[in-house]
């Protein structure tokens, strides 16, 4: 989507429609992107913040999507994380990506088909340090591994959270 005022108004109408039908708040997730619209007027975090403000929806922050989108568009993932409106976060997702290496260059593909990669763990650490605890989900739904491998990701996520709390001196929130 182009991030413009017109598109924002349309998306807000749709979020309102869903929340009204369900009778409750929903969380909207930041996407993995491979392209952007030249006419976009605001950065994605600002668009999501305006949407959450106008509709009362929450945000689902997918840390892998941040890394994938920023890599693919040549942006800095740490800057994106800084700009993200943290107080709207209701849930965090972590996942693995695949590297699509071609003669033209490399794209990262959000494929949910492997372990969470080191740069994504680093961003997750930074996020928890800044915002405290949120419900966190590991997405691994392609090339599903054995239980021990999957559970090791959960243990690692807990360890990163614990380390981040310690680093921040924050009390466990939520």
């Amino acid at each position, binding site marked *: 989507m*182009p991030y413009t005022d017109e598109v924002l108004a349309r998306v807000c109408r749709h979020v309102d429609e869903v929340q009204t039908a369900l009778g409750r708040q929903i969380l909207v997730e930041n996407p993995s992107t491979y*392209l*952007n*619209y*030249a006419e976009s007027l605001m950065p994605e975090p600002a668009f999501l913040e305006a949407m959450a403000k106008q509709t009362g929806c929450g945000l689902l922050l997918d840390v892998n999507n941040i890394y994938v989108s920023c890599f693919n568009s040549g942006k800095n993932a740490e800057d994106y994380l800084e700009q993200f409106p943290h107080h709207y976060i209701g849930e965090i997702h972590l996942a693995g990506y695949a590297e*699509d290496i071609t003669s033209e*260059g490399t794209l990262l593909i959000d494929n949910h088909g492997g372990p969470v990669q080191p740069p994504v763990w680093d961003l997750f650490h930074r996020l928890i340090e800044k915002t405290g605890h949120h419900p966190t989900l590991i997405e691994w739904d392609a090339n599903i591994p054995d239980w021990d491998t999957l559970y090791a990701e959960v243990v690692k996520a807990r360890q990163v959270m614990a380390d981040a709390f310690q680093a921040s001196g924050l009390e466990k929130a939520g």
Partner: protein
Amino acid sequence: MTHQNAFFEALMTADMTPPDGLIGHSDGVSVGQRFNVYRNNVFHNLIEALQAAFPLIEKTLGAPGFQILAKDFIKAHLPSHPVLYRNGQALPDFLSDYAPLAHLGYLPDLARLELAISEVCDAPDHTPYPAQNLTGLTETDINELSLELAPSVRILGSPWPIYMLWAFLTDKGDAPDMKPQEVMVFRHEFSPIIRLLPPGGYAFLEAVKGGEPLGEAMTIAEASDAALSAETVQTIFNDVMQYALVKSVTMKGK
């Protein structure tokens, strides 16, 4: 054309240039290649949904052949239902008119059978009618009963050996003899069950499902298939009672 329409049209058309206004990054990966990520993602997911719903069609054609069929089908029948397997509802009719596979005349009915298997898995539960309520009835009483069958019960008739094809492809039987066959498909607990119907069984069950009392259903079935016999009805009845497929019973005029 709106952004959405332009994006969608290009997404669904292989080799079409992406719409204007899209940008990548100075790293050299072209807009076209980036756009292909979206295109591949959409087709990959839709093809996977078809594979899950039609494993025997895939087994018959082989994976590469199924990919070609699936892409042609998806382009002709864009997804219209939020339940993914239902987007394959038009596949049997599509196969009937699909020239590259016209030599495999049984494919449409095999696809109908696979669709029925998906449908019965998705059918609502029912509280079975207590069988003991039917004991002690006279033959006249029984002939006047109308049965409402479980919501999962499907019947399928084919000029092809549809049951033997299914059994062969699921490693439960030998290569089929070329003869017409009829089947009943239903769900028992969490598993789909496929039963070969005896001659006349389809016409009988069709009448029962249409609300005809059992006596009338037999008369109708006898008229349409001379092979129907008391044993046919007994065989079907045994299945119906064994799997508790009766939901409710009404007696004529009551």
